[in-house]
């Protein structure tokens, strides 16, 4: 069979697919059962229905909730150090200053 490249290729594909199955159905659940921290994270992901594979904010539960909670909390507290303060604008300007500095001295 090894002399036949086509059969070898299909053999490889089946073997690697088998490895995926081993991880998803044997190793993964075993780790969840036997390593406490894995089990706890898995339980939270399940209970809260978190899409832990999400790559962008808003794709996972909690992102929008968090944003609304924090923004509304700060507004509710009526603090004067929240919002478009000098410090906040300073933070924004710092970002562009750092990029400008990098442009001049690091990315030469």
């Amino acid at each position, binding site marked *: 069979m090894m002399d036949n490249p086509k059969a070898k*290729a299909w053999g*490889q*594909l089946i073997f*690697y*697919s088998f490895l995926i199955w081993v991880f*998803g*159905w044997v190793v993964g659940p075993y780790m*969840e059962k036997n390593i406490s*921290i*894995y089990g*706890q*994270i898995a339980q*939270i*992901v*399940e*209970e809260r*229905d*978190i*899409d*832990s*594979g*999400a*790559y*962008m*904010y*808003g*794709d*996972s539960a*909690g*992102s929008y*909730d*968090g*944003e*609304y*909670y*924090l*923004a*509304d*909390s*700060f*507004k*509710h*507290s*009526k*603090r004067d*150090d*929240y*919002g*478009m303060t000098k*410090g*906040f604008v300073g*933070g*924004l300007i*710092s*970002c562009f200053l*750092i*990029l400008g500095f*990098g442009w001049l001295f*690091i*990315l030469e």
Partner: protein
Amino acid sequence: MEEGNGIVVDQGRWEWSQMWKKEDWWAIWIGFFILIAAMFVYFPHSGEMKEIINKAMVKYGQDDRRTSAIKTIAWYKMSDAKKKAEVRKIPAGKWLTSFAAKPHGWKDNPMDAFFMGKEKADAKAASARGRYLKKKIVEEISFAVAFGAEKIAQTAGFTNAALNLSASTAIDKWRDAKLAAAAAKKKTQVKPYNRIGKLIGLGVFFCVLFGIPITTMGVPFRQFALGFVFVYVVAVVAWFFSYQVTMKHYGVGYAAWAILLGMLISNTVGTPKWAMPAVQTEYYIKTGLVLLGAKILFEKIITIGTAGIFVAWVVTPTVWLVTYWFGQKIINIPSKRLNAVICSDMSVCGVSAAIAAASACRAKKEELTLAVGLSLVFTAIMMIVMPAFIKGTFPLDKQMVLGGAWMGGTIDASGAVAAAGAFLGEKALYVAATIKMIQNILIGVIAFFVALYFTTRVEVEETGAKVGLGEIWFRFPKFVIGFMAASIVFSLIYSWFNLQLDGLGRAMIDKGAIKGGSDLFRGWFFTLSFVSIGLATNFRELKEHFKGGKPLILYLFGQSFNLILTLIMAYIMFYVVFPGLTATI
């Protein structure tokens, strides 16, 4: 076209016909088409959303105004009632959501990903009902406790710090119980479904959406359509695997599966030749990125205040530049593009930043694959290790905010940030997810910066030719302009809605044109591009880029620096400079 160091660089003159002959422009047109269509569907319904928000304010507003010393039960109830304003819940939005839906989550039976009969759905709902009832009882008890504690604090006029603290603690416990009950309730609402028909319909829609424009780029529609069937089926399989319960627990998402499956095919049995016309990585990725632009809303950077902006917007560019310098000067990574893509995914926000930076600097597909692979591996590790470390070493009073900010600033992917944050608690989840969101907004800035740097400096160095403004415009990746334009336009519309009524922006944009429009398709487009990357990637070429383990060293250095700097900055900002603001969270 000219080749320099193996990187193909365009050289030439701007022609208007590029606007209908180049994928960069088609990415913009397709992206804008989807965004404008979403606006047409949702924007006429702003009146209904205003009504929901106003009703919530009338019902709970007076009670809420009793005090600003603590967040009362009325404040939370008003917040919950306002959140119900989601324009995507109109019938057209519901149809769009179901049309673009991915396969379902599943555990042992793969068919559950596509189909579930009434009997099985009813059985699942019934088994979840018991758990829900238990959580509901806990919620009711904790509400009674919270209500009592708030009444006591109110009798003292909300001026007694100890009573306020006791009320806040009781209300927080009620919120936790309420969220747990709400999640359990969701599991009792299992309905039968059949995704097969809609998945076929969605495939046909995508085929037409991408297939008609591609004819102007010289690919016959028939050939594209035939190949697209293959690419789309692999994309569906990638989603199918990513929603398997164990994969979900470990955060192995669609990008990982799409690349892995594509590479498995291309490096074993080989990508069929007839599928190649639809292996259009750049085309799909850039369209997805234009849609991503609409999600980058500038007003959101203010969400967590000055502390957040320093953690997310000052640390990130610093880490990017220092890591890039380390890659170029210390370990001498041969490819500046690979260096830039790894810096972006590690310092900004993983996969999304990597694809934006890779497209902006025209990195090779192997370079993007490598950077994404590194990010996915370390994300999976950090998602488990960081919350455990924080729980074991941080003082109890600093776990939520400091721990949350640290994880939000350093773990690459948003989903992993949410899972790690939720492990510590509700507030940690909120802080972590919000810091990550503010970092996400930086993608546009970094992508523009990278595009400008590579267009005006790196490509000039590679071709040895001095370039004028016309040449810069010719070479500049145009989709970045589409990305920025979508971001600016949607930021303005979002703020305009919020100016009309606080919360209307989130109802119309976040939970409307984005969640019920662009987001429905963006994930699919990225999956199609990752499948294409995998189908065109050769293991041997990939190995070449990994030579000497330099990309790994770069990632490790950058992430270590990121971890240290983010922790220091978060501590200084949240506990030294703004402790009052932190106490409000």
